[in-house]
């Protein structure tokens, strides 16, 4: 145990006196930034795809869009996130002759990836809403898109909020691979501390603890949101 407390002292020393804390804060910021912006992009893309996939398919345009969306979802669900990051960073960017920081690439890829997953979550959410809601909207002369936006999707979101929260937690955890494209996240920060002291036990333990705290906080936030959204079930 003496050994362990020495390691803790060493870790604290690096964090407090040798700039470790700045690394951790930077890493935390990037982790949150990538997960939050990724989730937002994902929700936007996912909602659009889910809407396309539930449009009645009488006409040509919805069918073509639907095929494109299926392809997109298949592509992003069929390959690991790391591979998507690497392909984007080392293949697409050079081909397109573009420059982007690792963090920006990560945000984009996380958004595109979670869009594919969220589209399926959102689709089941939309299908869980009573079809009578859509009918009622159409019957008063609202368009499909307007009824979707004002009536169906808000109810769908309420139904899938817990699942959406899980997707966010998933994203937070998956950020640990963004160092592959040179983005400094929590893993990079703690790895840096470990490398500097040739001692990884405490840094990685601390890293695990931070992830757990993040996830617990998010779960709590989801519970609060669910509670306030349930308002329309109870009235005032």
């Amino acid at each position, binding site marked *: 145990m003496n050994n362990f407390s020495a390691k803790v002292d060493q870790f604290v020393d690096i964090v407090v006196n040798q700039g470790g804390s700045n690394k951790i804060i930077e890493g935390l910021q990037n982790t949150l930034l990538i997960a939050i912006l990724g989730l937002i992009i994902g929700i936007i893309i996912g909602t659009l795809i889910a809407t396309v996939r539930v449009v009645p398919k009488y006409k040509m345009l919805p069918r073509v869009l639907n095929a494109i969306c299926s392809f997109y979802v298949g592509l992003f669900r069929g390959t690991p996130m790391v591979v998507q990051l690497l392909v984007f960073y080392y293949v697409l960017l050079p081909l397109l002759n573009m420059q982007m920081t690792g963090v920006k690439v990560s945000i984009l890829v996380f958004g595109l990836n979670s869009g594919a997953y969220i589209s399926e979550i959102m689709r089941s959410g939309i299908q869980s809403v009573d079809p009578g809601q859509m009918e009622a909207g159409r019957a008063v002369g*609202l368009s499909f898109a307007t009824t979707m936006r004002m009536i169906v999707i808000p109810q769908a979101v309420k139904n899938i909020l817990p699942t959406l929260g899980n997707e966010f937690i998933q994203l937070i955890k998956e950020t640990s691979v963004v160092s592959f494209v040179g983005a400094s996240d929590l893993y990079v920060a703690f790895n840096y501390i470990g490398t500097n002291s040739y001692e990884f036990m405490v840094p990685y333990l601390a890293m695990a603890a931070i992830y757990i705290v993040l996830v617990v906080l998010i779960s709590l936030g989801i519970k609060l949101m669910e509670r306030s959204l349930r308002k329309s*079930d109870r009235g005032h």
Partner: protein
Amino acid sequence: MIEVIDLKKDFGNHHVIKGINIKINKGDITVITGPSGSGKSTFLRCLNCMEDPTSGQIIFNGVNIADMKIDINVHRRHIGMVFQHFNLFNNKTVLDNVSLAPIHVRIKDKNDKTPKKKIIEEEHARAMELLRRIGLDGKAEAYPSTLSGGQKQRVAIIRALAMNPDVILFDEPTSALDPEMVGEVLDLIREVAEDGMTMVIVTHEMGFAKEVANRVLFIDDGRIKEDESPEEFFNNPSDPRLREFLSKVLV
């Protein structure tokens, strides 16, 4: 007002409507009855193209709304619909349920130069007036889940009225209600009828049909078998299937 020409509707290989021709005039209170599975609800839902007809025409105010090329939304605004299961917007308050569509339509209307804020104010006031009429102005800020079935259906009826429609379609408006709530809903429908609204009502309430309708249809096997005044319909039914049907429902 509505002319239906050779309407047919299939669901896959199942022929539900097998050729219906009818003219519904302004001011008509038309009640549609028939055995379950006869196609009466499907027929009603074809009138505002909630179900797209497989073939045939629905001429509403001179326009064939079964034509896929027209903007159906514009025409549906003049055709109110009341559903068996009410279908109030669960995520909107009672006031929003009634005023949402009128507000949306006016804001989108390029000829309506009224500022957005004014439109919302006006339509809220109008919705409140309608709610007062049915005695539910106290529930304006409540959500549908807090209302009784009868209250929900009455809100659904004034939601249709708020669009100032030319005709209102009722799809079994009292079938999902507890018996003690049927009366309040029928009373409101009767009141709206007395104001001269054109109505098409699918219902099993024969007493109500006798009293309010000026025309009763019997649909069986995807066709109109009888189209008569209520007196003729109930006292001198000519179709054998109708006689059998009436003997079952008029106990």
